[in-house]
């Protein structure tokens, strides 16, 4: 199988996020980026498919700080080819980013035709989960999102599992080539020891590819008006004292608020 994984860097929310002076964007200086979690799952699913059916895994990632580490790590995990996409800046907006990536996929030599393009179903920058369907639209391929497993691939079709609420699962068949938005891989993304990543840094060449020009403009009909940091809400009040006292205070409070 020829598998392509699209991976993107997103703000790491472990680090404190700062809002830029314009009040509409994140302060890129203060940001630290991390690979989007579901993209990591997309890579894992691709590696599992490669292990099962053979073939090649190619990872494509728009340029960003620390993206090289992500690509070397992917290579250490078993990706055969890693490509950094130049000219697609972070902050482009989801729609334009998807456009640019799709255009690049078609233009990168020896990449398509592929059987599957896998990417995360969502990211913290793309809660609507638009990237995967937009890429599919642009490529003219079928799309399935919120995928939790690819159970079988045969005769030009893939059987794909989606999980719904309350444990319901659906099995879908999609003709190949297709784009999958991966929610979670069948297994948690594998660990790759640092020594292997270091070896991959020596053995792997990250291909640089200039995104086809012109890079799409951010959409003009939807614009960001303002971003806000979480507001501190009222502090929790601890009720102290003996069990009887606490129970008494609790009853008073509930009565006071008309809940009793």
């Amino acid at each position, binding site marked *: 199988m020829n598998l392509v994984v699209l991976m993107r860097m997103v703000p790491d929310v*472990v680090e404190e996020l700062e809002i830029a002076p314009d009040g509409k964007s994140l302060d890129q200086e203060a940001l630290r980026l991390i690979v989007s979690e579901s993209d990591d799952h997309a890579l894992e699913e691709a590696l599992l498919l490669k292990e099962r059916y053979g073939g090649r895994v190619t990872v494509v990632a728009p340029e960003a700080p620390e993206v090289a580490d992500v690509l070397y790590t992917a290579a250490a995990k078993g990706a055969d080819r890693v490509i950094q996409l130049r000219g697609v800046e972070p902050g482009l907006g989801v729609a334009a980013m998807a456009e640019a990536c799709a255009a690049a996929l078609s233009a990168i030599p020896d990449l398509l035709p592929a059987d599957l393009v896998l990417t995360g179903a969502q990211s913290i920058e793309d809660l609507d989960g638009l990237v995967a369907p937009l890429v599919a639209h642009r490529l003219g391929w079928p799309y399935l999102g919120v995928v939790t497993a690819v159970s079988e691939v045969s005769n030009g079709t893939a059987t794909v599992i989606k999980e719904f609420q309350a444990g319901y699962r659906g099995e879908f068949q999609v003709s190949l080539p297709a784009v999958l938005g991966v929610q979670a891989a069948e297994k948690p993304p594998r*660990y790759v*020891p*640092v*020594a*292997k990543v*270091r070896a991959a840094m020596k053995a792997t060449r990250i291909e640089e590819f200039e995104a086809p020009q012109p890079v799409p403009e951010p959409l003009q009909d939807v614009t960001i008006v303002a971003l806000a940091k979480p507001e501190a809400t009222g502090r929790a009040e601890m009720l102290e004292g003996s069990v009887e006292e606490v129970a008494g205070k609790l009853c008073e409070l509930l009565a006071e608020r008309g809940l009793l």
Partner: protein
Amino acid sequence: MTDPAAGAFLGLPARAILWVLALIAFGLFGWRVAAYIRVLARARPEPRWDQWPARLKRFVLEVLFQRKLLEEPLIGAAHLLIFWAFVFYATSFFWNLLRGLLPFLPIPYADQAAWMAVALELFGAVGLVALVVAAARRYLFPPPRLEQTRDAGIILSLITIVLLSSLTGAGALVLAGEHHAGVGIASLFAGLLSGLGVSPEQGVQLNVAMWWVHMVTVLGFLVYIPYSKHLHLLASPFGVLFGSLKPPMPAASEGAARLEEFTWRQLFSGLACAECGRCDRACPALNSGYPLSPKELMHHVKEMIMASLASGGNGHRLLGDRVKPEAVWACMTCLACIQRCPVGNEHVPVLIELRRRLMADGEIEAHLQEALTNLARYGNSFGQSARNRARWTQGLDFKPKDARKEPVTWLWFTGDYAAYDPRLQPITRAAARLFQRAGLDFGILYEAEQNSGNDARRAGEEGLFETLMEKNLAAFAKARFERIVTTDPHSLHALKNEYQWQNGGVPVVHHTELLWELIRTNRLPLNKRLNGRVTYHDPCYLGRYNGVYEAPRQILRALGVELVEMPRHGSRSYCCGAGGGRIWMEDVPGIQERPAESRVREAAAVGAGTLVVACPKDWVMFQDARKTAGLEDKLVVKDIIELVEEATNP
């Protein structure tokens, strides 16, 4: 004086028979030993040829004086006596053999030399008593985890025959009226023989017969040794001699699963093992019901070597059917097994090699994976921003110096737990106040400090250890300081013993060593005598790994509290269960009593109201354990820092 090898037996010259028997025995012995050496030669190299004075000292203490065996005094004394009896009897055997094979040598037989006759009689007698003790222990009062094999019975019988035949022979000689310079034991046997109706004339023949029984038994013994568990007779002196002189850590490798992927020294442990079970009795993993037995581990190494001897070729695996991944992950790297082992075996390095292999294959426990991923990205196992590392300082009324910006005498390496765990931050602040109060010129690295990598390394993530070490060394290079103090024994070990410092590095001490120095020199005056009965838990990485046992005890005595020791203290301290990355892993099903629970019960049992610790991980583990063990009303857990602050408060 008769030459026992001079006569004839069944018409064949006795000396010729002796030659044939000796050639067969030495041939079989040599063939087997050569086979072992060939297997070891297939393993990876590991240099153990340095520091000869230290090695010889250890050899004298642990082989000639059997220091570790004497930690269990009764059987230790018995073993020491059997060992020395063995040494003298082996000397006598080779001497007699040489004289018997080569009659032209101008020397007497061994027992014709007065000093040797005395030694043989003495060691023969005490050896027999020791054998009775050994047999009684083995068959009537066996300690837990002692391997009961047929081998042991055979060996005890063989040694008994060797000693008895020699003493009987000497007795027969006395009975025959030949001059014998003994100490009375031979005369005792002569009396016994006479009582049994042996005449003086028969005495001469009996002596020759006993000489042959003795020689043939020892020749049989010689063949038997390398084919049995008593290979340890042969291997253990070398095991001790080539043992690691410091807590062992295998050189960087891709790990090992198969025979030829281990180092020769790791394989050698399997050959030296006597299956005595001292490691098992000390192992916190095994005693809590984890699926790990250090003794079985050694046994599996030996099995792997035996399988290779039987079928030849490579590819004999340790990891898999013999040693399961669950066992590999169970180790807390507390070093108790190695510390207790009388033959110098190194169990932990074998497990670390296996962990490295599992790690390389991506077979790793989910929570450990999360912790390692966090360490790689954020430099701490908590998965918090590096920028938050010094957030604990916010509750102080002064700001510790930033060692990157101004020179300090002491660089304080806090370690992850002290810095990030909200339960421990008050203790970390207390340490800062103590240092401040003592007028110590100290600083911290703020967000530039990273986890030391000690536990990642022991979890088998060698590359991550190297990365963290490089980042810390780079941060050290940008700071100006003369010495390092750390509140974390795990960091202490890595910084002090395993970091590859350029220009020799700097002194690294644990905070208990520094606090004791400050108290002793009155820079930290004690204003209040504390009372109450406390006990102290030696952290593995402070005690067994770095030999710091006294400083914390000196502090406690100075504070005025009554210090009572738990049965397992000092180098016999019992791990809390957190080491080697275990603190990040989930408990496995089937755990009976967690190590930390066993430990808090032990503390409560000696009547201590306070369990004093000197390691942040211990504090966390024991706080949990006193709740799960139902000791909340009886026992409190305190870091020694808390007690010192209490006593120094104005």
